[in-house]
């Protein structure tokens, strides 16, 4: 029997944010964010730079405390649910001075606070190979990460997250600094991960054709501008609220208006 996406979406809330508010010192980074994401969904998190996308991901990953409101993952506080979440951070937050082999990076997904360098590598090597096979980079297992393209690096980081075998995958700026072809490859990979039952949240600046790629979109600009089906919630008002004076740049990105570019 083939697994379909509909079978994976269980309409069972996995991440519930209720009036979530996050502060850095005295300034509010996110205010009154409310949404509910069900298991197996594929969600785009969009908004301007500084809009709070990474802040929200950090909160879901249990790295930032809430100032107000509540955020639950499978009914648990984020810091209690750390094993349920895997996180691919923005590439510029990684120290690329370290010249590592692909397998070393993927192995980090299997490294936790009980990982000491004293145990057998057989099982570890098998898991590394499985994860790399899933992202189509098994042939690069011994390759130096400095020799990979931007798209390949992103896939290695996704393989690291897959090795962790968490239910939720957070991808921060997964499409930045990669070309269009590589973006499509990564999207296909995300679709197949999602088909395997993982819930995927992707922070992205690309709001083109969101309704074709994602089940839901969460629009942030220091607060929740909208949340829901992309074809319904990406209205002119919401885009205006997110991008303000840059709204004109996105004039063809409103609902039911994606295919009329250049025809006007």
């Amino acid at each position: 029997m083939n697994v379909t996406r509909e079978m994976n979406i269980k309409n069972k809330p996995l991440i519930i944010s209720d009036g979530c508010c996050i502060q850095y010192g005295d300034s509010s980074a996110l205010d009154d964010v409310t949404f509910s994401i069900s298991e197996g969904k594929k969600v785009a998190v969009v908004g301007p730079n500084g809009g709070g996308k990474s802040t929200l991901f950090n909160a879901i990953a249990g790295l930032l405390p809430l100032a107000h409101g509540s955020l639950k993952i499978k009914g648990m506080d984020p810091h209690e649910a750390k094993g349920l979440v895997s996180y691919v951070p923005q590439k510029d937050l990684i120290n690329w001075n370290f010249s590592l082999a692909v397998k070393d990076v993927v192995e980090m997904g299997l490294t936790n606070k009980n990982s000491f360098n004293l145990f057998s590598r057989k099982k570890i090597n098998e898991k590394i190979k499985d994860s790399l096979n899933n992202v189509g980079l098994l042939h690069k297992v011994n390759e130096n990460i400095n020799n990979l393209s931007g798209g390949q690096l992103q896939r290695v980081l996704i393989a690291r997250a897959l090795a962790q075998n968490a239910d939720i995958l957070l991808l921060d700026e997964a499409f930045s600094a990669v070309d269009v072809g590589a973006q499509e490859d990564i999207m296909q990979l995300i679709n197949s991960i999602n088909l395997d039952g993982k819930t995927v949240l992707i922070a992205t600046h690309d709001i083109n054709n969101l309704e074709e790629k994602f089940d839901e979109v969460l629009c942030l600009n220091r607060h929740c501008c909208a949340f829901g089906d992309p074809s319904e919630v990406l209205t002119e008002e919401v885009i205006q609220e997110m991008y303000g004076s840059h709204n004109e740049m996105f004039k063809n990105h409103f609902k039911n208006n994606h295919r009329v570019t250049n025809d006007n």
Partner: protein
Amino acid sequence: MIIEYILEPFKYDFMIRSIITAASSGIMLSALGPFTINRNMGFMADAMAHATLPIIAVGVFLGFSISELGVPASIIIAFFLGYIVKNINIGEDTAIGIIFSSFFALGFVLISVLDVTINLEDLLFGQILAVSTFDTYIVGSLLFIVLSVLIIFFKQLLFFSFDPIGAEVNGLNTTFLNYLFLIVLSVAIVGSLQTVGIILVLSMLIIPAAAAKLVTKTFVNSIRISIVFGVTASVTGLYLSYFFNLPSGPTMSLVATGIFILAYISNRLINKNTANLVPIEEET
């Protein structure tokens, strides 16, 4: 005849102690060097070395030897520097610069005020030929501690150094790992002060690691090669200082620099020869 000449230093107990101590320091520092340079912590390491001066001044005034002060001094410095850098929002370099210079100045003032008898030249540039058997045991023990921590926590330290956010999400205690690394780095630095001194300890930490990075492509290999370069520099430097009557600490530093120059030349030659042979990476 030549062998007799080469083995001549081993006739003297003080030289045997010095060679063991120099090799131990060389291994400790060069094993931590690759982590230090890839995390851009050279300035931090230099500050650690200079921050020892007031602790040594007070310790010697109270009747302790520099060797006995090693571990407690390392822990105090690691926690103090780690806390200041993390919690004072004036920029890492600025915070380190303030501690670096003020602690060094405080050390000199304390030496004068407390009227402590310390040979400053030995402290600044090392005096390995004066190490006692006790000192050798202490440095050997510190080497064991540093290598044990590095081997046991290698995976966690590597993950934390490469991607601190990813490491924290995976449940690693990044605050613990940060201080653990600072402590072992500080232990290696303080433990090597008699070998190369406050000023030159940085050379034995940074230069073998930098040379290793030029001749190998992977981080794990760079640690192995850095250790080989570090031991070679310290032992060869000591030998040269014995035969040519040179100051030992500076000679070790210069041998390390010589190794770096050779590594740089070989790196340039290899890159020149392979410049047109590197295959174009295909997107797959």
